[in-house]
């Protein structure tokens, strides 16, 4: 009992102080408290989105219009899909620096095989498109298979294998095209998969939505999804629990490549050409989207909803900067700074969490 009365004594004067200073200082103090607990609960992303909407809304009249925001959504589709793939790899505690190359490979090979098929059987339009898409996706996934084998079987660090494959794939894509864009695909491909609108919503958005739904199901509702978290959470514990860590890692990289390839084919449809240069910024942007969305670089933590929002946020910033007429070179600077800022904010958040539990 003595301890209890002690505590009462000490709380009392503190309380008095508080009421005395309940003026401006108290207000700011409690505001800071609210900010803190919000940061702990939801992370940095909502704050960033809010700040972004506010700043660009002031800088440009056109920014906060329905048309512009719909435009952002359509432009961000590709990054959303690639970021989802990147997220899977990050969940298992890895990296995929070859997502850009996978997009380029699927674009180039897809376009090449489609033009070739179109030249041979121009009358079977759907088969041509199907063959092209299949070729593109298969080529992209091949890189994922190599990544997966390297990480799962040969224990190469994900950083090294994906960096190496990024170079290999990019080189092949350039070699195949001679550095020139590939033309000559059927117009219908681009008309439907690039510019098509169905019930007022662009076709690529359907793809992104479909992938998001399926992936949510796989990640949250199947044992394979749980295994991806467990491999990133503690690979030894996962192995001792009977999880086949090698298979899990392998399929994660293949899945990431599959998603990136789909993004690559969709992007090819949008550009109406197959290009080797289209994915160069994607590794940075997709990792940024994930990290801003709270995916841990140490693995084991991350949610699909946040990653979708993270990718949309990056699209929003890029669009806002365009409207505010910020030079494209400077935009790259801003993107890098945002990434660093998000990582630092996340560290601060972790500190808050650990200090609030004592």
């Amino acid at each position, binding site marked *: 009992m003595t301890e209890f009365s002690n505590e009462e004594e000490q709380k009392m004067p503190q309380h008095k102080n508080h009421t005395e200073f309940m003026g401006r200082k108290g207000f700011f103090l409690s505001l800071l408290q609210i900010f803190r607990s919000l940061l702990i609960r939801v992370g940095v992303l909502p704050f960033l989105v809010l700040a972004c909407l506010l700043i660009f809304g002031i800088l440009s009249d056109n920014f906060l219009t329905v048309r512009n925001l719909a435009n952002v959504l359509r432009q961000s589709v590709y990054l959303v899909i690639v970021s989802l793939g990147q997220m899977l790899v990050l969940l298992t505690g890895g990296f995929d620096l070859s997502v850009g190359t996978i997009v380029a490979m699927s674009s180039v090979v897809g376009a090449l095989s489609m033009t070739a098929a179109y030249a041979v059987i121009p009358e079977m339009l759907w088969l041509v498109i199907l063959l092209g898409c299949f070729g593109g996706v298969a080529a992209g996934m091949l890189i994922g298979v190599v990544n997966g084998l390297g990480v799962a079987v040969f224990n190469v660090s994900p950083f090294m294998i994906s960096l190496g494959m990024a170079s290999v794939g990019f080189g092949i894509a350039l070699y195949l095209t001679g550095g020139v864009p590939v033309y000559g695909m059927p117009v219908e491909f681009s008309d439907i998969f690039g510019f098509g609108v169905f019930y007022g919503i662009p076709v690529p958005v359907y793809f992104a939505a479909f992938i998001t739904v399926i992936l949510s199901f796989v990640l949250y509702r*199947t044992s394979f999804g749980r295994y991806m978290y467990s491999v990133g959470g503690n690979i030894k514990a996962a192995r001792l*629990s*009977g999880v086949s860590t090698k298979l899990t890692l392998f399929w994660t990289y293949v899945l990431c490549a599959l998603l990136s390839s789909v993004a690559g084919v969709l992007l090819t449809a949008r550009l109406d050409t197959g290009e080797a240069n289209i994915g160069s910024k994607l590794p940075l942007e997709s990792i940024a989207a994930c990290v801003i969305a709270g995916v841990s670089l140490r693995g084991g933590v991350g949610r699909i909803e946040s990653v979708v929002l993270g990718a949309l946020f990056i699209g929003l910033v890029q669009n806002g900067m365009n409207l505010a007429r910020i030079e494209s070179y400077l935009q790259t600077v801003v993107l890098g700074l945002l990434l660093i800022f998000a990582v630092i904010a996340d560290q601060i958040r972790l500190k808050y969490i650990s200090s*609030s539990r004592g």
Partner: protein
Amino acid sequence: MVALLQLKKIRKEYSGVAVVRDINLELESGEAHVLFGENGAGKSVLISMIAGASRPSRGEIYFKGKRVNIWSVQDARRLGISAVFQEFSLIPQMTVEENLFLGAEITAAGLLRKSLLHAMAAELLASLDFDISPSRRVDTLTRAEQQMVEIAKAFRSDLSILILDEPTASLTQHETQRLLLLIEKLKKQGVGIIYITHRLAEIRQIGTRITVLRDGHYIDTVPAKTTDEKQLIKLMTGRSVEKIFPALPREIFETLLAVNSLTTKDGSVKEASLHVRRGEIVGLAGLIGSGKSEFAQACFGMRAWLKGSLVFKEKKIKFNSAGYVRIASMLRAGFLYLPSDRREEGLMMMRSVRENMSLAALKKKPFSNGVLLNKRAEVKKTKELAKKIRLSPPNIESAVELFSGGNQQKVMLARCLSQKYDLIVFDEPTVGVDVGTRIVIYEFICELCKQGSAIILISSDLPEILNLCHRAYVFYRGRIQSEHSGVAINETNILSSFFGKGALA
């Protein structure tokens, strides 16, 4: 006489919540003062303030009668206060001598005086009776040897207070005895020792006084020699406990596991044969590295076999070409191994209690139909398990890292309840766990055994082998040195085989 160190009304708060409340503590020179309490009682926070790793929110510290501020580790060092924490501060890629003098290197014209440092390191280690070569890399040392290096580090300057946070948690009986002798020696030199431990035998052996903490409160300070176990546990938990070890179940059934002359590829186990029956708790004792853990790991598929045979539930288990048993098929057959290092091998610290508990049984009912998860059944089942192991707080959606060490351990052990296992291996199940939690774990093991599982208990804590096992095997240098059962499991018998003497097999 003025006390060596005196804490007056020390308080520590984290964002307004007090974790250490107005604690008074007095340390005489030549005294070993034991801090005793459950995990999360505030012992670690208290010593971190004495060692300068964190600052008190309020209160005063007096060193030899003078008021001091210990605001950094350097401040503490200047007063001669050194701490050895559970988490080592050694750099694994560096040698012992480089680690010993890290931050206090001796140089001449900017160059390291390597031969002098080497000689000093050798002298330091010799003076402490530590048999470690100064030029070995730290990552080649065992955990116990690393601990010794860590302690030696505290001795490189004048020492007046040594703080030891559960120093024996990873040591074997033999190494523990050496450490305790060293502490006796230090006491005679007038060093004041603050010692955190959960092991009652150690308290009895070296302790002078015991200060008991509970929930950050100071409870009492009692003399170490005359206070009995029951009294201590009552002070610590606030309730009285009749016995630490439960009564063993009596009924023993058919043989479940039979291993014949197991030899591993890495040579850690040689020609070891043993059997385990349903309803039986079999203890594996021995020094660290004696092969007791390695034996179980080989059976579970974590180590490669060179030769030998393994029969589980009357079925001969096959190895793959590399010599490994498949972990997934052992699990399916009903064999589970729970590792000793929960952080390294046991738990996904950032994931929830629920996901950690269900991981090993995820492919089975009721958790899933093989592919699709049944989340509702998972929540229901894990809630049941949390209740059974008395998880506190009982929140199954919180990340494991937010729980105290004892509760983390319980979460890992609960994995063996997520489905029915016939044979469960507990590898050091009570390392770094307070007595209150220990009692829960012992009961839990006995309960499993009663329900018809067989248990292999690997332990470096001798009382566990003596009181909780039907039979015990003692390992020495990879071989099984002796087998004891019933009343023959006593301290003399077991210890005599620890060091290769009293050979039986």
